[in-house]
């Protein structure tokens, strides 16, 4: 087999591949056998007709085409391997010569992985945000917890106040007539939640348990029901019960109730620690993303169209799979979001380009920096993963291998390492002189 490579465009390559004549003859013979099994020729049992009979029966071209199919695939794969190109899409194949007794010559035009021109990717000096958790933030969190653990206490004597939950029966009238949907019984309503029409909840304030109140409201002009919009209505409301949220006092008792800590101070410390950790993680992520984005922006890549399309394909396939879990078909989804596949593809495009570019850039950097992973290290990583998901190491490994995902797994780790390296090399180190300066300002305040 002989291969000629020719670069026709940036990221586009033509492979001219010649397969030896003998191979073609063999392929035709194989094809003839296959065809013989499938067709009935009078005078012959299935699969028993010799090649020349079949050839006369189905035609030479048909047989040649049948023979080409299984011939081109492996030849193309071999050519790709020999030339070391990296195709990213299916090739367009053009057959130049396919005659028995002569070499088969065909052209495969294929888009290849683009070269990445890396820009600056070290010493970008991206500052990391300092995270601080103020005592007020801790207090707020405490209040939220207080709120969440508040008890609802029935109010027997007393008036309806803001934030109370009242249980009411109500019936609404317009011009003295009851209207549809204007009636309800045993309805829990939180005063101030604005779930009812404006004014309704306000007018219940001050009422007492068991009392009947008349509420006069006007339906808003933009009310969803056309018949009611803008109408004046009277509601007869009976207050069945009043419940009030009672907040537990913030003390050690409270801390004991809602957490494993014995004192409020400990709980405060823990909240602060956890909030700090979360904020730290968030800041780290942001910092990392910013560095990656900068590095990617600095590099330039011409991403072939085929690569973008296949990425969008897989994004849509993902979406479709997710939707089908919810029992939604793509068609339903399109009509629901009032869109089309065309539109969706267009929407996904920028994301697809960004993703591909990021991948390519990380890969290029890893290559340039010689970031790899040895087999032993890979082994260790798999062990880690296995522990993480509580699976047996061999099991996970077999699963990864079976699905051909070992390579992806490897790439993932290399990417992680590359990113670590980038973060290391692009973080703006805080100079010691800055710290006291900030402190001074704070002191001045």
């Amino acid at each position: 087999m002989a291969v000629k490579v020719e670069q026709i465009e940036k990221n586009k390559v033509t492979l001219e591949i010649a397969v030896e004549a003998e191979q073609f003859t063999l392929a035709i013979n194989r094809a003839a056998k296959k065809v013989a099994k499938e067709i009935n020729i009078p005078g012959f049992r299935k699969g028993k007709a010799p090649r020349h009979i079949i050839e006369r029966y189905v035609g030479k071209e048909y047989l040649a085409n049948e023979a080409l199919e299984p011939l081109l695939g492996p030849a193309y794969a071999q050519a790709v391997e020999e030339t070391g190109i990296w195709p990213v899409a299916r090739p367009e194949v053009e057959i130049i010569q396919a005659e028995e007794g002569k070499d088969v010559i065909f052209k495969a035009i294929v888009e290849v992985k683009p070269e990445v021109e890396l820009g600056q990717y070290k010493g970008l000096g991206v500052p990391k945000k300092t995270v601080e958790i103020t005592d007020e933030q801790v207090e707020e969190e405490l209040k939220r917890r207080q709120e969440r653990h508040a008890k609802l206490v029935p109010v027997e004597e007393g008036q309806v106040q803001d934030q109370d939950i009242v249980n009411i029966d109500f019936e609404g009238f317009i011009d003295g007539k009851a209207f549809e949907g204007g009636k309800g019984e045993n309805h829990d309503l939180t005063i101030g939640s604005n779930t009812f029409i404006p004014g309704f909840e306000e007018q219940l304030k001050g009422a007492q348990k068991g009392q009947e109140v008349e509420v006069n409201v006007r339906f808003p002009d933009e009310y969803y029901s056309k018949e009611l919009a803008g109408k004046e209505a009277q509601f007869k409301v009976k207050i069945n019960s009043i419940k009030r949220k009672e907040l537990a006092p913030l003390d050690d008792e409270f801390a004991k109730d809602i957490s494993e800590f014995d004192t409020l101070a400990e709980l405060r410390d823990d909240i602060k620690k956890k909030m700090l950790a979360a904020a730290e993680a968030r800041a780290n992520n942001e910092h990392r993303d910013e560095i990656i984005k900068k590095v990617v922006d600095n590099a330039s890549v011409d991403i072939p169209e085929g690569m973008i399309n296949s990425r969008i394909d897989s994004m849509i396939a993902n979406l479709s799979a997710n939707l089908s879990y919810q029992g939604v078909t793509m068609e339903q989804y399109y009509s629901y979001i009032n869109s089309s596949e065309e539109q969706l593809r267009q929407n996904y495009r920028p994301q697809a380009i960004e993703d591909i570019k990021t991948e390519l850039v990380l890969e290029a950097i890893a290559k340039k920096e010689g970031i790899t992973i040895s087999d032993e290290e890979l082994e260790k990583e798999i062990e880690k993963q296995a522990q993480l998901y509580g699976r047996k190491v061999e099991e996970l490994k077999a699963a990864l291998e079976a699905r051909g995902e070992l390579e992806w797994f490897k790439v993932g780790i290399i990417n992680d390492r590359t990113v670590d390296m980038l973060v290391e090399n692009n973080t703006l180190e805080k100079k010691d002189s800055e710290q006291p300066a900030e402190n001074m300002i704070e002191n001045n305040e």
Partner: protein
Amino acid sequence: MRDARDVLIRPVISEKSVGMVDENKYTFWVDTAANKIEIKNAVEKMFKVKVAEVRTIKVKGKEKRVGRYVGKTPDRKKAIVTLKPGDKIEGYAGL
């Protein structure tokens, strides 16, 4: 005398007949009235070969019914022609 083409109608193409080519035997559908001598001469003239032996088989037509009418497909005659060693017929059954 009848022309060679009137005697030999066409080759028999079947698994068996194609297989017999290896034994230097070629099978033809021939005129039902043709005798072995005529067949021998026809084959020698048409393919420029020497014939060693001719064997013939009469194939009776089959009875076919269409409703209550009884019909019959025509009788045919097959001839298996053995050539003298070294001779062969090019292009028999697409060879």
